[in-house]
């Protein structure tokens, strides 16, 4: 491929991508010999800089290692099917509105409302179940539902969040999400 082809290709791609910067003085001349090598070196320098200035915090890495305890083939996953952060239109002036979540697994639905004062939930169809509020691999606070399948928890969850439910039919864990 000669240089002219190169320029055309790059121009086309730039148009498609609508590059955001206005500074266009560099970048449009094709690759000159040895330049790819230089750019590789620069990328490698950036990689070193990231390892020094913004590495994965070791404590976090350790939490991820311990997360293997969450690998449970016997537990059914209740999928997140509704999340008001994504699926609901924001209501003007209602920044403090509770976050609504719905999880589904088989014939079971779990509705959860996360507010500033804690969480409320309901298992449908109504049934008794034990519920754990999880924030990591360690065991969570145990709760029970009432006869209507409702449960409450007084502390507002922050960070990684999931519920583990034990019903008459088995164990169910909701999809993890960040609150």
């Amino acid at each position: 491929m000669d240089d002219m082809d190169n320029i055309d290709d790059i121009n086309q791609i730039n148009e498609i991508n609508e590059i955001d910067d206005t500074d266009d003085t560099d970048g449009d001349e094709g690759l000159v010999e040895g330049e790819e090598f230089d750019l590789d070196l620069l990328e490698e320098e950036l990689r070193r800089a990231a390892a020094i200035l913004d590495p994965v915090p070791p404590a976090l890495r350790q939490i991820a290692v311990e997360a293997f305890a969450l690998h449970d083939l016997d537990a059914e996953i209740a999928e997140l099917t509704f999340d008001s952060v994504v699926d609901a239109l924001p209501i003007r002036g209602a920044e403090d509105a509770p976050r609504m979540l719905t999880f589904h697994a088989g014939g079971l639905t779990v509705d959860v409302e996360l507010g500033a004062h804690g969480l409320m939930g309901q298992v449908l169809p109504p049934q008794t179940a034990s519920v754990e509020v999880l924030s990591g691999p360690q065991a969570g606070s145990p709760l029970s539902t009432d006869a209507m399948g409702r449960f409450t928890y007084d502390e507002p969850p922050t960070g990684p969040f999931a519920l583990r439910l034990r019903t008459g039919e088995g164990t169910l864990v909701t999809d993890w999400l960040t609150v």
Partner: protein
Amino acid sequence: MDRAHVGALVRAAVDGDAAAWKALVEGLSPLVWSVVRSHRLADADAHEVYQTVWFRFAQHLGRIREPDKAGSWLASTARHESLKVLKSLRRLMPTDDAQLLDRVSDDRTPEQSFLDLEEAAAETERIRHLWQEFEGLGERCRQLLRVLMASPTPRYQEVSVALGIAVGSIGPLRQRCLRRLRARLEARGAV
């Protein structure tokens, strides 16, 4: 981490091999972290999203359809979770870059300790300049390069799902962004 081993490690972890899981965490953590960081989450949010991604991965481990592409699964989940956290209004707080540059970590890596040495001061300066110029790039370039600088180098497929851009446009965009960074460094007289 050699991406060729990822599928085998996932399958071993599904069968209960904790060492395989650990290898996955060691090998793919920088990718997850880079994707989260590229979305400019505040520190606390970045920490939470990183954890959520790994908790979700552990939870879904036995159900991942293409174990060989676990890196893409993680990158995609990290993007998804990052965007969602950004979307909840109360969390709209940009990363404090100056703070990042001055941050003194309690858990110092060997590289950080090395940089503490006085004779390494010049090297430290150089790296800080590089980082400042990187942070000064346009948002699109900054985001792409932050993902690309994961170690080991991510696959383009992973970059693609991490940022929602076509695989075919990554190469040209990368070239352009690195050139721009080099021009900034040259203008500063730092090359």
